[in-house]
């Protein structure tokens, strides 16, 4: 009995502390406004991670800079997937006006928790909103920004530097789902646009050199590998073979460019956060989420490695490098992670 009282006491203590103060992590702006006028936004992320934190911080600063009376609560499940629905239920009970779930499962949980409620949901960083169930007929209060890189952008990356490219070579590890899905999308786009390509998949890294040589022998002008963790760990082998033949290697992650790849196009998390904040402001100003289809990124993180360019003897015009950030200088100075 005593123990039951102890627990009840703890709970009562928690309850009272929140009844007269804002939810955890509150950063409120426009304190002069009355409680009714303040627009409550909850940003919920599943765990701490550099890119997720960057999205959150961008949304917070952009909303605060808007000058509107917005009360922002940032919540984090700290990697405990069971806490997501708890956090979101708390947000709902506290009567938030809008919720911003970051990442796929958070957005799906938000949809379930806010089911039958007209609270708008503006998701961030969901790679495939349709597959995630965020675009159906029951999603009229849901919009957001996807972090998917369309295949067209990948192909554009190659044609930006090599407008005369005749044939693209795709190299990937067959067991890596992310890598395979990127390549499949790129292949579908090439089929549609009538662009010739060759592909070779490897089962393990010992086949990498042979695979790269095979593609080169088939006359490809450019090599592309997506965000492939295995190949990312062997960029030196990969680029030695390719650059010796004068073929540039494009890839799906900035880390791969830092390790010797030539150029990449990736998610710009600040841009993503800004687009989400813009959607939040639109909904706040009265736009109906049903009229706002989900967005893809309007700008990407683009990086080049100038040292790599020297290794395969690039002679691209300066104009091709416009909009690209230099990740590795000609002398090998790396800005990666800086």
């Amino acid at each position, binding site marked *: 009995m*005593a*123990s*039951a009282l*102890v*627990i009840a006491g*703890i*709970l009562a203590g*928690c*309850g009272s*502390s*929140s009844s007269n*103060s*804002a*939810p*955890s*992590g*509150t950063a409120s702006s426009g304190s002069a406004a009355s409680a009714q006028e303040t627009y409550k936004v909850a940003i919920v992320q599943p765990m*701490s991670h550099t890119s997720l934190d960057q999205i959150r911080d961008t949304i917070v600063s952009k909303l605060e800079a808007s000058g509107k009376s917005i009360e922002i609560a*940032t*919540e*984090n*499940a*700290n*990697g*405990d*997937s*069971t*806490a997501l*629905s*708890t*956090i979101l*239920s*708390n947000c*709902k*009970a*506290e*009567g938030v006006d809008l919720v911003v779930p970051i990442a*796929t*499962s958070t957005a*799906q*949980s938000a*949809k*379930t928790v806010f*089911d*039958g409620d007209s609270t708008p949901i503006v998701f961030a960083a969901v790679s495939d909103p*349709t*597959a*995630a*169930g965020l*675009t*159906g*007929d*029951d999603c009229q209060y849901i919009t957001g920004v996807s972090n998917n890189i369309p295949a067209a952008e990948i192909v554009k990356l190659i044609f930006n530097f090599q407008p005369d490219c005749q044939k693209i070579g795709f190299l990937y590890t067959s067991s890596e*789902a992310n890598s395979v899905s990127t390549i499949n999308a790129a292949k579908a786009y090439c089929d549609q646009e009538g662009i010739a390509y060759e592909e070779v998949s490897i089962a393990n890294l010992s086949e990498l050199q042979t695979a790269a040589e095979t593609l080169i022998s088939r006359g490809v002008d450019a090599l592309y590998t997506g965000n492939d963790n295995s190949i990312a760990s062997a960029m030196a082998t990969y680029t030695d073979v390719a650059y010796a033949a004068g073929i540039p290697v494009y890839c799906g992650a900035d880390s791969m460019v830092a390790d010797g790849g030539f150029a990449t196009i990736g998610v710009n998390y600040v841009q993503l956060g800004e687009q989400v904040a813009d959607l939040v402001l639109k909904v706040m100003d009265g736009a109906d989420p049903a009229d706002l289809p989900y967005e893809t990124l309007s700008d990407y993180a683009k990086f080049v490695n100038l040292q790599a360019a020297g290794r395969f003897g690039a002679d691209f015009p300066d104009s091709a490098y416009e909009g690209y950030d230099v990740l590795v200088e000609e002398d090998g100075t790396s800005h990666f992670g800086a």
Partner: protein
Amino acid sequence: MVYLSMLISALSQGMLYAPMALGVFVTFRILKTPDLTVDGSFVFGMTVCAAVTIAGHPVLALLAGTAAGALAGFFTALLQTKLRIEPILSGILVAAGLYTVNYAVLGGQSNLYLQYDTVNSAGAAVKAASPTIYKNFSALFAGTEGVLADSNAQVLLLTLIIVAALTAGLGVFFFTRPGMAIRATGDNEEMVRSSSINADLTRTAGVMLANALVALSGALLCQQQRYADLNCGSSMLVMGLASVIIGQVLFGDRGMVGGLISAVGGSLLYRIIIQAAYQVDMPSYAVKLLSTLIVVAALAVPLVRRKLARGQRGGKAQ
């Protein structure tokens, strides 16, 4: 009203995890063997349930998910009894192997939403939400006013019915001959063997039952949240253990049926604690530590209670 809806939300979540707590109770308290298969079998129940739900059979999906958990438990027991691998390691191995299986069940992706392809009235290809037991159940309450209009309250009610039936069934089972044999295996395996009962068989049955319960929990959660995700199994065992121990602390050791009920009660209370922890005004990264401290405090209660009791007796003696 705000606190009522938060309480209902915490209770509905706690009820969804209650079968998992029952499963952990079966291994830890009845078989008295730690089983780390839980983190894997929970997700196995979830993924199999998702696949069958999308195929259009929500009730069958729960049974399939439960059976999947039993299968996972079978392999863990096989490693324990036939290969004589340490129980802890057996569980870890099966849970690790299940990662690949779960990945494959989800069709080579980490997240699957319960929806299917269909054609809408305008003739366009769209995705529609797959029916789940919770969706079908809440359809019964369309137009209801009051507490039962809350979707969490509907989830709580339906899950409560399932968990109550489950607890009653287990309560009866553990007093039947096979149930008694499983309990005896946990109490004294040597004695069981010398009574010419096949202890490997009873142990296998116990571990299968436990993981079936855990997987049912995953299956129920899958239908409630309407998606399966490979990351949903993390720290499941810790949660189940905390629930069992909190339940035991609060309700005491009250025999088999009391133990089952207190595991369910512990699961409910654990979710209330977590929900309350997220309500405290502090950065949310601090919640992990706070909830740990609250659980530790709950665990310390029996000792404190004993010391107090001893202190009182001492006082009287003087």
